[in-house]
């Protein structure tokens, strides 16, 4: 052969490719047992370094492929391998280190190589020293660490960078296991930090931070030192920026501190990595002003036109995040973002478009949506969710665009996709329906089509529930019946049960559909599943009564009690057999869910945990209070208020109060914190002086309140029985306690103390404390159910209020009732509005309020109140006036 022999002569060998048969993988079809057999040559003398090297490579390759090695065979191979330390072949020795690390967890007695590794670590061959340290630290536990401590300290400050780096990184790994030993090396790490080598600097900084991170003062000092002296390593700069922004975050200080100046100065660093880290840190700071953001945004803008995809991606992802809170700050980048919407990297294009959707004008929406639909099938689910979230926020911003969006969403709904993606779409459609009544029918139609072929039970039941709620009130309710009944025929138990409940709502609301619904119900009563049958039988019987009140109570508006509370009460009831029937009113009410508006809608690593019904805040309080003997006779907890601050921030003692309302009593829970480290407080009570006929009956002190450990004391107040209209009262509060001085360091108190007191701010009890929010899904039905027996009506002028929004907000917070039918949202450009509020008054009396508001030189309000109890109506009207 007269082949030209290039410099790569060795490849003329490999130049016979197909000769090895299959895809030329020398490691294919490796048999673990055969390799272990081969490993016996480790014991031959003299050692053949090349063959041994090859066998070690095979072993590591097998381990890497996930081959399982039993303890005995691994130990055997490991011990044979130790013999290879006799060879001086460099690569072979390095592979021995790797084998030790790989086998550290599967072989026994790996510590046998400790002395060989210690020798290499302190020897003359610099090539061995670093890797030997890393292998040694891998097999060393905290008891043995002391034995090599001396060597580690020397290695950290060694002048050879690879040795120093290896020692620092290994120390960092061991901080988790042996913090107490490693923390003694802090001086050595300090010395290493001033090394000229950039990686040593970086590793030393990392170790120092990990050792000191719980001591904020030390971290601040360290940061000051390094930001002044200046580092060479870009990695170390990134680390410093992260430490600085964490400190800024914790101190909650203003952004005029030297730390912020440091981060800002990094925007002018010559390394892109550092510049990006700084920009990202600024963008992620809470409450950043537009002026502070501007320099960060402009460097990100520059990155948008970088030839490096990763940099473009990083920049546009960060800009996307800025656009969520400060869309106007990103507007300057719109042109650069426009250039990215055709980027071949679809992730970048998606992020650019979703950012533009947030910052751009209404007119660009159609064009952008068209662009994104051209490649939506190519992007990963994570980014599809980002797109859906962008659409969702867009719909809130430009309600008029809902038809374009709805169309787009319905197309996405038909495409393939995982659960998270589908859920995001369904949630988005539901929120559009709720915001725009005119889109309701199209939206419901899309959802109906979706459940025809939906593999996700959770989504199907959610949609069925929505159909039951919204469908009966559409102009043509009958068309939904078919979709719902199809579910009864085709789906799993949970979906069938949900479909039955939805059907019942149609029957209850629409008299003309009732006969057909009853026929379908009859069919459902023969279902194979208990739950479906039970529901069908129950609804069948309720519907046959044809009574509005029954329908409202048992079909439209379900139970309003707390589920964990109900469980507990029922359990209690079964423990004490009695003739009395179980009283639903003894169960604490459910606190209405607070509708939270998600603002952070970044692509989140979606949690894989199933959602669990967590006990509400009130259920927790109920449990805590029930554990105190004095409060056991009070009955179920009716309502717990939000925390009220009774002291200024930054005072000696911090006191917050939670008002717990019971049927005839109130319990005031004072959460106190002592912020003086030289005092111990004992027997802490809060004395209360009521302004009205309320009566303080009992004080339960906090026995001891050491420095910075919160404690609670309680005051029990009896509500006036004779005057049910006395719902508001002002209490003046004084905290009384016994002070003992103590040693700030040990916390050891003196024997003697003295009494002292501390005046707190006044505490108000208002009508809202007597009313629990209850959501009535169908307010109209509930209104009929309560009836007009005790209806009262009055008109008020709210002179000080200028807008309807403000008026609605004031009424809701004043009465503490739950707005229903989304009536808390006032449509734009309207000058009249009706607000529906529902609640339960202390003593389990339903109360409903309908407030008609009209805007004309201030707001005029006509309030109609219905309740099952006359005094309640009077109380509400009296307190509004």
């Amino acid at each position, binding site marked *: 052969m007269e082949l030209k022999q290039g410099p790569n002569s060795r490849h003329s060998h490999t*130049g016979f*490719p197909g*000769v090895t048969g299959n895809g030329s993988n020398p490691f294919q079809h490796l048999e673990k047992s055969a390799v272990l057999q081969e490993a016996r040559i480790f014991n031959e003398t003299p050692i053949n370094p090349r063959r041994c090297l090859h066998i070690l490579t095979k072993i590591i390759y097998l381990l890497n492929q996930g081959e399982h090695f039993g303890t005995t065979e691994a130990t055997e191979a490991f011990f044979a391998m130790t013999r290879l330390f006799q060879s001086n072949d460099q690569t072979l020795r390095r592979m021995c280190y790797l084998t030790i690390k790989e086998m550290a967890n599967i072989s026994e007695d790996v510590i046998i190589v400790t002395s060989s590794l210690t020798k290499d670590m302190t020897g003359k061959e610099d090539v061995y020293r670093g890797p030997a340290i890393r292998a040694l630290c891998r097999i060393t536990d905290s008891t043995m660490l002391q034995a090599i401590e001396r060597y580690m300290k020397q290695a950290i400050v060694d002048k050879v960078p*690879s040795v120093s780096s290896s020692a620092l990184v290994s120390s960092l790994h061991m901080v988790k296991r042996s913090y107490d030993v490693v923390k003694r090396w802090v001086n050595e790490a300090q010395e290493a930090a001033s090394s000229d080598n950039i990686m040593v600097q970086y590793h030393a900084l990392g170790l120092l931070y990990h050792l000191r991170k719980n001591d904020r003062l030390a971290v601040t000092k360290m940061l000051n030192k390094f930001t002044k002296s200046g580092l060479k390593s870009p990695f170390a700069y990134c680390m410093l920026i992260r430490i600085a922004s964490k400190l800024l975050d914790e101190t909650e200080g203003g952004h005029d501190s030297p730390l912020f100046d440091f981060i800002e100065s990094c925007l002018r660093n010559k390394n892109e990595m550092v510049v990006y880290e700084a920009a990202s840190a600024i963008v992620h700071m809470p409450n950043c002003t537009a002026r502070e953001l501007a320099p960060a945004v402009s460097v990100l803008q520059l990155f948008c036109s970088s030839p490096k995809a990763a940099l473009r991606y990083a920049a546009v992802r960060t800009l996307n995040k800025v656009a969520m809170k400060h869309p106007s700050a990103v507007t300057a980048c719109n042109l650069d973002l426009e250039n990215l919407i055709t980027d071949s990297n679809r992730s970048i294009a998606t992020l650019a478009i979703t950012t533009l959707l947030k910052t751009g004008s209404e007119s660009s929406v159609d064009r952008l949506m068209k662009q994104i639909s051209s490649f939506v099938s190519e992007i990963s689910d994570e980014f599809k969710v980002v797109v859906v979230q962008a659409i969702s926020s867009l719909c809130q911003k430009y309600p008029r665009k809902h038809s374009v969006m709805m169309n787009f969403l319905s197309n996405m709904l038909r495409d393939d996709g995982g659960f998270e993606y589908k859920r995001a779409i369904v949630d988005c459609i539901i929120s559009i329906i709720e915001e725009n009544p005119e889109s309701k029918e199209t939206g419901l139609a899309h959802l109906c089509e979706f459940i025809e072929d939906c593999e996700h039970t959770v989504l199907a039941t959610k949609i069925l529930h929505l159909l039951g709620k919204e469908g009966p009130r559409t102009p043509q309710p009958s068309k939904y019946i078919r979709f719902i009944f199809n579910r009864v025929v085709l789906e799993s138990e949970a979906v069938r049960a949900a479909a039955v409940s939805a059907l019942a709502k149609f029957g209850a609301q629409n008299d003309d559909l009732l006969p057909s619904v009853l026929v379908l119900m009859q069919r459902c009563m023969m279902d194979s599943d208990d739950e479906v049958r039970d529901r069908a039988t129950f609804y069948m019987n309720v519907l046959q009564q044809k009574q509005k009140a029954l329908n409202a109570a048992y079909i439209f508006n379900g139970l309003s009690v707390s589920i964990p509370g109900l469980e507990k009460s029922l359990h209690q009831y079964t423990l004490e057999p009695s003739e009395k029937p179980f009283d639903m009113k003894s169960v604490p009410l459910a606190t209405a869910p607070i509708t939270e508006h998600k603002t952070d809608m970044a692509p989140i690593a979606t949690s894989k945990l199933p959602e669990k019904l967590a006990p509400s805040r009130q259920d927790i309080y109920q449990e805590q209070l029930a554990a105190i003997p004095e409060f056991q006779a009070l009955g179920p907890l009716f309502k717990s208020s939000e925390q009220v601050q009774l002291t200024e921030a930054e005072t000696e003692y911090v006191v917050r109060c939670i008002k717990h309302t019971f049927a005839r009593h109130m319990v005031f829970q004072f959460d106190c914190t002592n912020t003086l480290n030289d005092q111990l407080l004992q027997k802490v009570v809060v004395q209360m002086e009521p302004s009205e006929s309320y009566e303080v009956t009992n004080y339960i002190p906090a026995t001891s309140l050491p420095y910075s450990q919160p404690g609670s004391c309680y005051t029990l107040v009896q509500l006036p029985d004779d005057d049910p209209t006395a719902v508001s009262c002002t209490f003046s509060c004084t905290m009384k306690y016994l002070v003992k001085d103590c040693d700030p360091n040990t916390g050891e108190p003196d024997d003697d103390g003295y009494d002292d007191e501390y005046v707190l701010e006044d505490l108000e009890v208002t009508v809202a404390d007597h009313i629990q929010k209850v959501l009535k899904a169908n307010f109209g039905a509930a209104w009929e159910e309560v009836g007009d027996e005790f209806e009262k009506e009055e008109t008020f002028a709210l002179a000080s209020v200028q807008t309807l929004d403000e008026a609605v907000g004031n009424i809701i917070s004043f009465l503490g009732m739950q707005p229903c039918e989304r009536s808390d949202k006032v449509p734009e450009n309207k000058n009249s509005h009706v607000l529906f509020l529902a609640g339960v008054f202390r003593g389990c009396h339903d109360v409903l309020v309908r407030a008609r508001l009209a805007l004309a030189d201030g707001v005029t309000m006509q309030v109609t109140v219905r309740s099952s109890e006359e005094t309640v109506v009077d109380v509400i009207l009296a307190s509004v006036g």
Partner: protein
Amino acid sequence: MDYATLEPSLYTVKAVFILDNDGNRLLSKYYDPELYPSMKEQKNFERNVFNKTHKADNEIAFLEGMTVVYKSSIDLFFYVVGSPQENELMLVAVLSCLFESLSQILRKNVERRCLLDNMEGVFLIVDEIIDGGVILESDPQQVLQKVNYRVDENPLSEQSVAQKHTVGVLSYLTCLVQSKTYLSCCYWRRFGQGETKAEQTELYYRTSN
């Protein structure tokens, strides 16, 4: 996604892996024990990442809640994985260091066969660049100096193979035609760039006859 929860730390790299043309694992290291603890989960992840990335060379992707930077060369795919909050450029620095270092020891011949023939060098290089998730070195020259690895001129795996087969010109040619990947990588090296494939084949026939 909340940046505020990002604890300053040296643990930058969550995983690194090298896959072949068919998405098979050649090397992979996971540094965060909480991320895909079992082999099955790891291989699923690799498979998913491969499916989403092997068609277009886009450098960066966001998959299963992780930032993935990647690079391909002939029939190899290199991936570095980090948390979604991680500075993407740090991950890119690791990836390019890995690629440059390998390119050097493989003499710019970054393809599957060469990589497998020098697997020990590959293991050592990865070990010098990342230690337990911490970036140990990011300069390829430093990495090469530390590894100090010389390409084995006559690897054992081929020796044994060569002993078993009589290497004739005919079989050589047949194999050339069969192995397309080989055509695309070895030819270029031997005959220099510039010629078209047909010219190369012609040239080859002439030289070998």
